[in-house]
């Protein structure tokens, strides 16, 4: 008796969770479905989940008529550069805040940290003129320079560095290591979870940047993926076969990376939460 009711319970549980998951990713399934459906079957009532045949016409049009691959590369370059620069400057600053002694340290740290609540998007108008004067509009640096000094980064790294035992550092100092070597040989090797978490956070953040990119990038060849998709929407309005194909292509990298690194990504994000 007991065992049977247990089995029913487990079955119900599976059913409930399964339904929840399917409803939640339904929009993505429908996007993929639409992307490979022949045009006449897209706008039907009732909606047809199973098309009479699969087609690559939409995908082909996106890839041949638009610099889609270029947009993908632009996005990758911007997000990678932003992540790298952000890691470098935040590691140096976080190290200084956590492990070096200097007057005014905590005051400066709190000043940096409180800027976490400045929504830097409100700066788009002044940034536009600053970047114009620097002649950087329509370039990669225009996008990554304003987002690399992420306060959450120094907060996270400082917190992690603080917990590394002092004895390790002292031994190295006695051997005559300077601060840079301590950072490189002692601190960084044990900080991989923090570095990974921050890299994931920063990459997603810059990959998603929309408002400022839309203003700073006007030339079709320089667009990042989010802005490129906006341009497609402007050109095709409600041609959903094409728009969904483009969306699908834009999701593909994220999907592949996620399928491979799911555990690491979720753990990394949970890590930023635990400390922030």
């Amino acid at each position, binding site marked *: 008796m007991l065992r049977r009711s247990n089995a029913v319970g487990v079955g119900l549980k599976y059913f409930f969770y399964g339904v929840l998951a399917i409803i939640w990713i339904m929009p993505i399934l*429908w996007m993929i479905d639409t992307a490979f459906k022949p045009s006449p079957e897209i706008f039907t009532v009732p909606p047809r989940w199973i098309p009479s045949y699969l087609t690559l016409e939409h995908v082909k049009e996106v890839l041949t008529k638009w610099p889609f691959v270029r947009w993908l590369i632009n996005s990758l370059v911007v997000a990678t550069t932003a992540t790298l620069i952000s890691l470098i400057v935040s590691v140096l600053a976080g190290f200084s805040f956590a492990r070096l002694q200097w007057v005014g340290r905590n005051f400066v740290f709190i000043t940096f940290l409180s800027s976490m609540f400045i929504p830097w998007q409100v700066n788009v108008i002044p940034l536009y003129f600053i970047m114009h004067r620097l002649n950087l509009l329509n370039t990669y640096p225009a996008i990554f320079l304003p987002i690399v000094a992420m306060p959450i980064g120094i907060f996270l790294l400082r917190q992690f560095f603080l917990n590394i035992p002092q004895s390790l550092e002292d031994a190295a100092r006695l051997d005559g290591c300077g601060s840079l070597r301590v950072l490189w040989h002692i601190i960084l090797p044990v900080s991989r979870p923090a570095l990974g978490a921050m890299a994931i956070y920063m990459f997603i953040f810059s990959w998603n940047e929309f*408002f400022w990119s839309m203003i700073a990038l006007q030339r079709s060849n320089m667009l990042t993926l989010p802005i490129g998709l906006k341009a497609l929407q402007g050109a095709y309005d409600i041609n959903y076969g094409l728009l969904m194909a483009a969306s699908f292509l834009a999701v593909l990298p994220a999907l592949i990376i996620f399928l491979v690194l799911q555990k690491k990504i979720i753990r990394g994000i949970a890590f930023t939460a635990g400390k922030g």
Partner: protein
Amino acid sequence: MLKTGLFFGKRGHRSQIEGLLFILPYAFLWGFFLIWPLAYGFFISLHKWDPLRGSKFIGLANYVKLFRSPIFWNAFFNTFEFAGIAVPLIIILGLVFALLMQRMSIRGGRFIEASLFFPYLLTVSIVSLVWKWLFDPDVGLVLYYSSRLGLHLPTFLADKFWALPAIAFATAWWLAGYRMVIFKAAMGDIPPELYESAELDGAGGYKKFRHITLPLLRPAILFALILTTISGFRVFGQVIMMTAGGPGRSSEVLALYLYRRGFDYLQMGLAAAVGFILFVIILIITVISFRFLGFESRL
């Protein structure tokens, strides 16, 4: 005595310079691209800004003009409405998902967690396009299936009243999974002994949630609330792509209003003023939350 004093003095001097050198790259980027634009933006907002023909200082006239404009107030209240709907939705869904995931002890859990989390990895443009398609008034899935269930729902994005809530819902779909991961991590930090001793006292699921989980999650929830609220107030991408502020101006939010003033009408001074107002709103919200919700211990 003197010698050690000198020694420490020298060493102190050196480590002072070293400490500052290490923060220099960060401080430069921070100052030049985050703080300076803020000040410069305020400066612009005090002008009838025209870099080509010369700008004219007009004091607070841009602000006065905004405060007298019903279109500005419309965007102002729309922004509050959006945040008022999206933020609780994101937090509650995130919390419910985290609880479900925590209690789930079946195989295949990873797949379910992945499905709930994955939308977060989409960019805002994809979220907007997909939901615009789902909400399509003629052949969208949402209206079709709801009418099959006997519900007569409004046309969402094409409806003056429902456009903003629909955008808020799509936003919650996008971001709830992220909050789920964060809340679940915070729940993982709660010592299991607390639950065990509560069970010994005969506490059921709800009581455990109400008296253990919720109080201990309070800091995490409040922090999430602040961050989500801030991002809610600067909403832009979803709106410009899903409704472009329409129908009429019924879903025009402050960031979109700023964009239009600046780049459609080239009223840069006015747009900068909107930006600064947005900054002040968010500043006030942050300060209030820190004061009244008690966050001193977070640092």
